[in-house]
């Protein structure tokens, strides 16, 4: 078996809203190995966002243990968590979350700014590598507002890749995109996974989840079911079958 990237045991999360206690997570056990391609599905209010936040080290659990590549995360302070987010996790959000005032290079570079270890020349190379990995070159000096939704999401993925993270966490990465563009993004994830990257996608679209190798269903703060996907959808094949506007116009 490949090495464990994420191992959470019996994680709970309780929010206090006034006097009311909300038990968002009620004991989650989950192990993710190197190279896995997993999706988490669940209706809204199921706790999948809370789980995502905890896995992404944006939040800490109320109880339970969380190991991220041998680091015991649940007891770390804000600064240490920030460092983990910077070095080990690559976030991809539904709304892209790019800095609108910065150009593409600076957006992709952002995690490097907060890790301060590379010289400028090395940085340049890594930025270009990242952009090449998502098939987006020639737009370096443009602002996010000058790019299409699909292109913006690819910038976000390039940004997530730049520090060579242990895992990529994508929260509804295709939620704001049309189906063809969404499929293009899924193709990028598929390619990255084939290159050995560990990817976790949170989605409520079964169609998207079916691209991954394993689906974890979350309901009422618990893992309801884990299911291996027998024949995951090949995004490249599907993309080839999809009707293309250019073809229709010809």
């Amino acid at each position: 078996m490949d090495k464990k990237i994420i191992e959470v045991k019996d994680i709970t999360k309780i929010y206090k809203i006034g006097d009311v206690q909300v038990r968002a997570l009620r004991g989650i056990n989950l192990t993710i190995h190197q190279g896995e391609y997993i999706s988490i599905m669940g209706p809204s209010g199921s706790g999948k966002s809370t789980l995502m936040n905890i896995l992404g080290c944006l939040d800490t659990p109320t109880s339970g243990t969380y190991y991220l590549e041998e680091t015991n995360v649940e007891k770390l302070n804000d600064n240490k968590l920030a460092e983990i987010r910077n070095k080990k996790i690559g976030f991809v959000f539904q709304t892209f979350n790019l800095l609108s005032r910065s150009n593409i290079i600076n957006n992709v570079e952002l995690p490097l700014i907060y890790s301060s270890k590379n010289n400028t020349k090395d940085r340049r190379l890594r930025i270009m590598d990242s952009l090449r990995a998502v098939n987006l070159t020639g737009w370096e000096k443009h602002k996010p507002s000058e790019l299409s939704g699909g292109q913006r999401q690819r910038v976000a993925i390039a940004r997530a890749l730049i520090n060579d993270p242990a895992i990529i966490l994508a929260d509804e990465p295709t939620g704001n995109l049309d189906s063809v563009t969404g499929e293009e993004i899924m193709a990028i994830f598929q390619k990255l996974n084939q290159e050995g990257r560990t990817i976790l996608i949170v989605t409520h679209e079964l169609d998207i989840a079916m691209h991954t190798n394993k689906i974890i269903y979350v309901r009422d703060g618990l893992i309801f079911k884990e299911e291996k996907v027998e024949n995951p959808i090949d995004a490249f094949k599907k993309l080839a079958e999809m009707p293309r506007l250019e073809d229709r116009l010809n």
Partner: protein
Amino acid sequence: MKRSLENIKVAFQALFLNKLRSFLTMLGIIIGVGAVIIIMAIGSGAQSSIVSNIQSMGTNLLTIEPGRDTTRPGGGPVEFNRNSTPTVRGDLYLSDYKALKNASTLTGAAAIVQRSSTVTYMGVSESVSILGATDDIFKIRNYKISSGNFFNESNVSNSSNVAVIGQQIIDDFFGRIDPIGETIKIDKQNFTIVGTLQSLGSNAMGQNQDAIIIIPVTTAQNKLYGLSTVNNIIAQVKDESLIDQATSEITSILRQQHHILSGKLNDFEIRNPSQMLETMSSVTNTLALMLAGIAAISLLVGGIGIMNIMLVSVTERTREIGIRKAIGAKNKDILTQFLTESIVLSITGGILGIIFAVVISFILSKFAGINTAITATPIILALSFSTLIGLIFGIVPAMRAARLNPIESLRYE
């Protein structure tokens, strides 16, 4: 290094995104810094001209004045120098001058009578200040002859009707006529002009020193004003270091002259030019300090403006803060970023303020004839002060930004 460069770049981006807002925010700092520098420039300009004027009069000159009654409460004019020794009313005479003239610590002395009289020449009349003096005045005051001669000792002892005139008098009465040998009327008495003075300009108090007619002190006393006293005596000390010795020698000579018993107060007052200098400086310093205080308040108000705008900026950019934190920015990084921004804002304001001040000072000295001197001190002071203001008033908004929860910030619309 890269991070602070990035911070400064982001700060400027933010400033340029809201040009008008940034400018209005900086205006408080611009006006504050500008006011501080202009006021200090005018202050030090005035001071340096006063200092050079008093110094040109000679720092080794003591002025002896008749005593005023300082023992009577509320009596006499406002004390020019609060540290002077108390005196009783008294008078000075030519005999005092003669006694002082050969004092061992002095190189010389001059007795002076100063009045205003109507001067007439070829039907033109004007009120002019008349300086009745002994002939030593020319040497002591360092007057330079332009044409003709100074009057001499025998003119003084004979009460001759001779006069030496300043450049302004030449301009006013003679125009292009050579005044030497001409006769003018001072209070209906004829005086022969024997010499003209080189131009002296204005003195420390802004009086025109060229609008002057110098005549023998005895002539002024006997023929014009009917006086037995003199207004004051100027004593020239051999060396600046002997000023204290000279003061005590003059005191003992005059006490003897005036038959003052020991234990009684002096009936004269000795004024020291360096005391005058100090008094003048302290007056201008106090003024400058007061105005600088007002300017500092304006800087403070500017600082509050910066804090206000930074709080708005933090709220507006909550989402950006969320993104940065999700990607690995520590609280410290966000703090530095917003602190950099407020400091950039205030320093930019400070620099614009300095430019503003330099331009205004230039205009003032060029077109309004006000002496200004911009020195490094107020510029350094203003810059560090505005940096400090950016730091102090930026810390609250920056801390608020740093403490934002990344999850909630990412959800912020």
